[in-house]
């Protein structure tokens, strides 16, 4: 089991127990967490699953890959140093993740 703590732009916090191997995007969408869209289903095509990653989570997951890095230049809300596309962060068993959503995804 893994846990993802999502903080929406309006401050609402949702904690979801996720399946290891699923992404943070999939875990949000399948459980109805708002603020993450994921239109393309995780194929790195839409950049609508942008999140800001808490510092301890960032240490766990690291920075974006090359293609993801390029896509972060086109997100609806400008990227910050801790931006990631949540479809690219796969949950590891026993880990807890903290992410905050931007005000817009599209």
């Amino acid at each position, binding site marked *: 089991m893994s846990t993802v703590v999502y903080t929406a732009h309006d401050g609402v916090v949702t904690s979801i127990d996720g*399946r290891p191997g*699923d992404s943070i995007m*999939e875990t949000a*969408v*399948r*459980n*109805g967490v*708002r603020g993450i869209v994921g*239109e*393309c*289903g995780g*194929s*790195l*095509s*839409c*950049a609508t699953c942008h999140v800001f990653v808490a510092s301890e989570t960032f240490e766990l997951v690291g920075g974006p890959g090359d*293609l993801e890095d*390029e*896509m972060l*230049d*086109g*997100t*609806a809300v400008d990227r910050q140093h801790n931006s990631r596309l949540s479809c690219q962060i796969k949950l590891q068993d026993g880990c807890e993740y903290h992410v905050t959503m931007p005000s817009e995804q*599209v």
Partner: protein
Amino acid sequence: MQGTLIVGACQAGVQIAATMRDLGDCDPIVIVGEESHRPYQRPPLSKGWLKGELEPDDVVLRTRQWFDERGITLVSGDRVVTIGREPDGSGVAQTLGGRSIPFARLALATGASVRRLPLPGTDYRGVHYLRDADDAIALGPALAEERVQRVVVIGGGFIGLEAASAARQLGKDVTVVEGTDRLIGRAVSEQTSAFYLDAHRRRGTRVVLGARITGIVGEDASAAGRRGSVEGVELADGTVLPADLVVIGVGVVPRVELAVQLGLEVNGGIVVDERCLASDGRTVAAGDCTIMPNPYPLGRGEPVRIESVNNALEQAKVAAATLLGQEASYATVPWFWSDQADLKLQIAGLSTGFDDVVVRGSAEAEKFTVLYYREGRLIAADCVNQPAEFLQIKQALAKGRTIPPEAAADTSVPLKQSIVDAAVPVAT
């Protein structure tokens, strides 16, 4: 009364239910889907799925808990066959499985079914279509079989080329047979088509354009009347392209049977207005089954039918609001994507009616953008391995902005810096 019936447990169907709950609707919602699977995403079926990278749980749209928590009843593996309607719009649907489902509101998200090839031999073993999860569940392992070496793909559109790419990546000998004179002709310009032709050939896929197929050939039917295995695809000039497996990807046909039965206007899809209302003024419809006023502010006037996830989701949101009596009108920048081998194609906007094209970047380097213009204004773009430019263009189009053609061609300046307000307002 008794709540909402949504016919079709697909992206659009699930999104209608999700948005209705988001908008505060508390009445019962029943979604009926004829497939036995939980609602799932289709795009991966022709991509990662065929390469063996995904499992069924990887493509589900929502957890069971999601449906339970929202009081949304999901009926899978059953099919609505008749719908009786009262003058007030309420009614009762009957399913093949014998269910009677009363409703006060009705939404059709019936989708599309695969277009069958009206030629002899499509019932040989080893001939596959690719639309539903069951198709992918059958095709995935078949494609991976050792004895399957020669694969012929009929149809050079997105599905055909994605399937061909997956087969090629699995080391198969692949031939794509397309009836028209270019690939993906329905969706992209000649420049992009020509690039994909070269790119697939470079990767070892044979492509036959302008092909007339006369039939699929196979070993003789056995005494028991059962079809044997496929052996090849026969062309009009008598050539037979040998095949151990054939994939047919020649498009889809909107599912309109229920709409016809309800007396709704149907014309190449269920006709809906910008509120997603069908011709009776009370049934809503969304997704692949609908034909609608062009929702793209920069699009041309004719009604369009758009097959995409983006359209299914956005139309569904409007349909949900309309069902609840709220004001909503469908407008969007349509977008599409296709992953073929290591080529990421992303399309923003609809290019219909373009009068000028600018190619930015290098087709040789397989990293470029084709920008479409009408009367000097940017209306759409095909982006190949240019995800950042795609996103920037999509946002520019959504905000009514443009990129002057001469600036677009100049790769020494980042595209983002060349985006300007359009001189003329959006003309519809």
